[in-house]
């Protein structure tokens, strides 16, 4: 997962208040210094994010098979996408993924963070172990999970058969393919969520917990009344990042099911990939990218506005 630019924005302290008016020369100097520091990230951001987004906007107004020159078609691609029932289906599949993945990865990560925030022996090693999947390539993880969840020879179904359960067809069965992807994804990202929440837990002043204990609050009471409210900025960060990543879910789908079986795991980005590189419809794919961007932007704005109701800073 990326801790990228958004994370930096969320945790940046407010700019220091201007104290006095600087002399003109020193202000120019200040501006130049700031620019010099921004340049190393501004250049790649412009070249690899902004410029491609703008050109994708242009591509979305064309019919382009990547071979012949693009032909301008106006908003046809958007009209086609909005009237195509398939568009609704791929957004629904994506939503299904998010709804399954987010609670699993958040509560799993929270449980791990709480457990590893104690004086447990060997906790540094355990923290490292749980973080390992985060830095492992999705291709490797997907192959391992495909093998674990193999309907006939996989470890999971073999274990289930020992307790008398006839395991499902996992990625071979349309009803179980998305849960398979959700399980693998939650497993892989658990460590990331754990690290963020662990950092948040460690920033909580122990005196507050001691005070609560003196007041007679039990473990659960302290969790709900002290820990979780003080953890809310970290929670907010995790939710925003996971939602954005959730909408852009692709690697694991591509490697585990390729959108199948029967199109049951065809998510938005898999469709963008197929449209571009398999079906020669880069214009439609770019339009779909922009639709997805609009949805993600909308969801994120709602979250940022809504955070005032539940996120407590300090």
């Amino acid at each position, binding site marked *: *997962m*990326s801790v*990228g630019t958004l994370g930096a924005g969320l945790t940046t302290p407010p700019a220091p208040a201007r104290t006095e008016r600087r002399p003109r020369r020193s202000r120019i100097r200040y501006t130049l210094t700031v620019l010099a520091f921004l340049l190393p990230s501004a250049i790649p951001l412009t070249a*690899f*994010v902004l*410029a*491609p*987004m*703008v*050109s*994708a906007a*242009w*591509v979305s107004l064309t019919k382009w*098979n*990547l*071979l*012949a020159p693009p032909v301008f078609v106006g908003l046809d691609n958007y009209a086609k996408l909005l009237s195509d029932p398939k568009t609704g289906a791929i957004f629904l599949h994506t939503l299904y993924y998010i709804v399954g993945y987010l609670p699993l990865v958040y509560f799993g990560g929270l449980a791990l963070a709480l457990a590893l925030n104690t004086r447990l022996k060997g906790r540094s090693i355990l923290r490292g172990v749980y973080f390992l999947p985060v830095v492992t390539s999705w291709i490797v993880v997907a192959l391992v999970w495909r093998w674990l969840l*193999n*309907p*006939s*020879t996989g470890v999971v179904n073999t274990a289930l058969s020992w307790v008398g359960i006839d395991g499902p*067809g996992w990625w*071979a*069965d*349309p009803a179980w393919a998305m849960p398979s992807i959700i399980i693998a994804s939650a497993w892989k990202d658990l460590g990331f969520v754990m690290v963020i929440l662990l950092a948040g837990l460690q920033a909580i002043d122990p005196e507050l917990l001691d005070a609560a204990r003196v007041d007679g609050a039990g473990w659960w009471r302290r969790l709900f009344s002290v820990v979780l409210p003080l953890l809310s900025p970290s929670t907010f960060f995790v939710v925003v990042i996971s939602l954005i*990543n959730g909408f*852009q*879910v*692709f*690697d694991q789908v591509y490697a585990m099911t390729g959108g*199948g*079986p*029967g*199109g049951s795991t065809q998510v938005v*980005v898999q469709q*963008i990939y*197929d449209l*571009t*590189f*398999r*079906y*020669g419809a*880069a214009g439609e*794919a*770019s339009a779909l*990218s*922009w639709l*997805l*961007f609009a949805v993600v932007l909308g969801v994120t704005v709602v979250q940022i506005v809504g955070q005032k109701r539940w996120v407590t800073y300090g």
Partner: protein
Amino acid sequence: MKRLPMALGIVAVGSVILAGCSAPAENGDGSVTITYTNFISNDGNEQNLQKIVDAFEDANPGITVEVTTLPYSDYGTALQTDLAAGTQSDVFDLEYANYAEFQANGVLAPIEVSDPSVYRQSVLEAYQTDGTQYALPSSFSDVVLYYNKDLFDAAGLDYPSSDWTWADEKAAAEKLTDQAAGVWGDHQPVSFYEYYKVLAQNGGKFLNDDGTAVAFNTPEGIEAAKWLTEKSGTVMPTIEQGQGTPDFDTNLFKDGKLAMLHTGIWVFGAVADVPFGWDIAVEPGNTQQASAVFSNAVGVSSSSKHIEAASKWAEFLTSSDTMVDVRLDSGWELPPISDDAKLSVYLEKGAPENRQAVFDSLDGIALPPVAAAGQTEMQDIITEELVEAQAGRKTVEDALASAEQRINAVIGG
């Protein structure tokens, strides 16, 4: 991370920026360097390709060939990205299924062939449009029926022969299957590539004449689809048991757990050292014999700065005696030449014994249907619907009706 709108944008921007910098490789002394991107030599034939390159460079002083080899699974995406960005090589591999689209979009330069008679006519003509040659076949191969002689002997059955039909194959497969012992009678993938062929074996057609609508939703088409999908779970493993994963079928055959296998002659090398007797036969048909023939080809980029040198290399790669010798020696796919005397060496190269079946299969050919538009999507849809039928989630009739409707919406528009 998954910066998706950007990935597309990068292609777009790349096409603008990079188009300007595909530097012409004109060396100071008038000699030229041409580039060649291929998948045909990947995974074992890189040295063989190098032999052909060396011979070409010896025969054509002043031309150097720079080879890039990519795995087949990445090749299509890489080529498409290169074409979009204008960074394609002077000469590049292509498949018959993509030829029509590439040609129609002006990607391929016309090629002057100095001696067309060297090539097998039917294979050469597959890469002509309105009488002009736009690509040259580099090899061809076909799909045959592999069988495990030991399993047939143990069951007391006669070996498959060229006069077999589906009924014979089915009867043998049922007798050879012993699920308790993990032995399966038959394996045939459930996919577009098998379906258009079994359709032809049953006297049916995949598309109408101008490629704008499907023609398979007929009694013949349904029977052909049943022939493919109903093996699963009876004489062939199910998807849950691993069917459909890469190399599953070849590995099962190599383990001696599969009596009959439908696959291409490119697997000869992979099964060469098995500890049991095996051979091949022409694939059984139902109302007629029809075999799938695949051919790879090379095209010259229409934006190449060295079309003449590139065409020379393309011709050498596809018709020179060096190429013929290298391919026949190594058992790499068959050279697309017309001279059967040269090809006869191939018949004596050892296992499988009945190599004649490779040529007999050419007597009845099923060529892949080419849609007016949306070729890949068409292939994906029919494969997806057939797999739904195979898994028992739809009836064959429903799957074909759904495929008909979905494909017509894609290729008719």
